[in-house]
C-alpha cells in the first residue's frame, strides 16, 4: 500500500486516577487503512482510542501524557478545543446510542444541527448521503420520521455510523462496534468498514480476533496497557513475532 501516515502516536500514557491504563504506546496509523486494536478485556485498548479523539479527558480523574499528531499537528495540546478535534475524528461506541428523542433523520444530522447548521436543503442532502454511506438509506428512506430507537440493533448501529460520518471526519474510531450485534448485522458493518476505508482512516477496537483478521490491514495487540506487537494483520495472524501474541490469537488466554 502506498499510504501515508495519518496519525503518529508517541509515548502515550493514560491514567484513571492512580490506575495506569495505557503505557508508553507509540505507533503510526496509515491513511485509508483499517487498524485493529485487539487484546483481552481491560488491556487499555478502548482507553487508547479514546485518547485519540480526546474523549478520555471527559472522565473525572482521567489524565494522559505523550504526543498524538494528526497530519503533523499535535492534537493533545490543551489550548486546542477538543470539540474541533472531534469534528475530524469521529467515534462509534459499543452499544448503539441513537438519541432517544430524535427521529432517524434528526439522528443522522444531529452533529450538524447541534453545531448550528440550519439550512433545510443542506441537511436533507447530507442526511441522504450519510445514510447511503452507512448502507442504511434503502431500509429507512420511507420511515425517516420514525424514532431512531425503533430500528433494530444492527440498523441503530449503522445509524450511529451515519451520524458520525455526517460531520465529515477524516478518521473514524470504532469501539467494539459489533459486540452487541447478531452475526448478520456484524457482517453488514464489516462490509461497510471495508467500503469506508476508501475515504477515511479507521481504527477499530475489537475482542473478536476473526473480525480483526477479516477487516484490518494493520493490527496491534495490547496487553496490560502495553503494545506487545504491531504489524500487518496478515503477519500478526499468521506468523506473530512474539510468543504472547501467538498464545492470545490461538485462544490460549484472554
Amino acid at each position, binding site marked *: 500500500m502506498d499510504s501515508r501516515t495519518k496519525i503518529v502516536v508517541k509515548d502515550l500514557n493514560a491514567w484513571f486516577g492512580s490506575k495506569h491504563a495505557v503505557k508508553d504506546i507509540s505507533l503510526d496509523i496509515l491513511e485509508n487503512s483499517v487498524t485493529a486494536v485487539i487484546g483481552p478485556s481491560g488491556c487499555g485498548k478502548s482507553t487508547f482510542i479514546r485518547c485519540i479523539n480526546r474523549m478520555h479527558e471527559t472522565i473525572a480523574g482521567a489524565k494522559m501524557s505523550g504526543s498524538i499528531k494528526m497530519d503533523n499537528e499535535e492534537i493533545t495540546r490543551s489550548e486546542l478545543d477538543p470539540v474541533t478535534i472531534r469534528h475530524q475524528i469521529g467515534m462509534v461506541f459499543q*452499544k448503539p*446510542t441513537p438519541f432517544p428523542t430524535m427521529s432517524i433523520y434528526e439522528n443522522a444530522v444531529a452533529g450538524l444541527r*447541534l453545531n448550528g447548521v440550519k439550512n433545510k436543503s443542506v441537511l436533507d442532502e447530507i442526511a441522504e448521503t450519510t445514510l447511503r454511506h452507512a448502507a442504511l438509506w434503502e431500509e429507512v428512506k420511507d420511515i425517516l420520521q420514525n424514532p431512531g*430507537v425503533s430500528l433494530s440493533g444492527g440498523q441503530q448501529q449503522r445509524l450511529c455510523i451515519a451520524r458520525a460520518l455526517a460531520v465529515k471526519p477524516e478518521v473514524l474510531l470504532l469501539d467494539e462496534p459489533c459486540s452487541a450485534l447478531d452475526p448478520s448485522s456484524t457482517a453488514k458493518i464489516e462490509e461497510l468498514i471495508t467500503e469506508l476505508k476508501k475515504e477515511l482512516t479507521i481504527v477499530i477496537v475489537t475482542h473478536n480476533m476473526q473480525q480483526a483478521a477479516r477487516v484490518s490491514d494493520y493490527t496491534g495487540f495490547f496487553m496490560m496497557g502495553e503494545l506487545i506487537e504491531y504489524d500487518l494483520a496478515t503477519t500478526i495472524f499468521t506468523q506473530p513475532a512474539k510468543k504472547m501474541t501467538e498464545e492470545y490469537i490461538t485462544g490460549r488466554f484472554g
Partner: protein
Amino acid sequence: MLKQKMANNMLKRKIADKVFILVLRIFTFLAVLPLVCVLSYIIFKGYSSLSWSIFTNLPAPVGETGGGMGNAIVGTLIIVALGTLLSCPIGVFAGLWLAMYGKGKRGFLIRYCADVLSGVPTVVLGMVVYILFVLPTQRLSAMAGGVALAVVMIPSITRTTEEMVKMVPRSLTESALALGIPQYRVSWSIVLRSAWNGIFSGLILAIARALGETAPLLFTSFSNLYWNFSLNDPMASMTVQIYSYAISPYEDWQKMAWAGALLLVASILLVTVLVKRFSKRVIYG
C-alpha cells in the same frame, strides 16, 4: 420418621402462608381506606353544594344565598402559576447541575439542603417568607404567596430533575460529545431533552401539591373577598377560603367549604391521573 415430620411442617407452612397473605391484605386495605373515606365523604358533603355560581360569584355575606368562590379559584390559579414560574427554572437548573457536577462536597451539601427544605413544615416556610418578603414590602400580596409556593416546590423539582437526568445513560452523552457537539449543547439538547418527560411529570406533581397548600399562603397572599388581579395585593385562594369557611360557625359557609374541598381534590386527582396516563418513558437505546 423424617418424612412424617416434613409432612407436618408442610401443613404448618401452608397455614403460615395463608395467614401472612391475609395480614398483608388487611393492612393494604387499611392503607387505602383513608383515601376512600376522604373521597367519598367529600363527594357526599360537597356534591349537593356544587353549582355554577361557585365558579363565577364572589363570596356572599352570611345569610345571603348564591355566594361562590370564583375569585378564590382564579386566585389559586394565579398564585400557583407564579410559584411554578419561579420554581421551575430554579429547580430544573439546580437539578441539572446536581446530576452533572454534583459529585463532590458541594453537591452533597446542596442535595442535603434540598432534602431538609422539603421536610420543613410548610407553615414555617410561610412564616419565613412573611419575614423576608412581606415585612420588607409592607404588604400581604399574591407575589408573596407565589414565592412561598415556589419555596415549597423547589426541592421536589430539583430532586426529580436530578434523578431523571441521572437516568440518561453516560453512553448517550459520550456519543454526543464524540460528534463534536459543545458541552452546553449536549446538556441542553441531548441530556435535558431526553430527561424532559420525567422532569415534566415531576413538575406537574409539584404543581398538584402546591394547589393543595394552605399554610404557606396564610401569611403571604392571605385572602380577599373581592376580585383582585393585582399581584401586589392580597389575593383569595381556594385553600385559605376553605379554611376560613370551614372554621366559621355558619352552615352556608361550611357547605361552601365542602364544595370547595371537592373541587380542589377533584382537580388534584385529575392532574395526578393525567400525568400517570400521559407521561411516556423515554427508551434509551
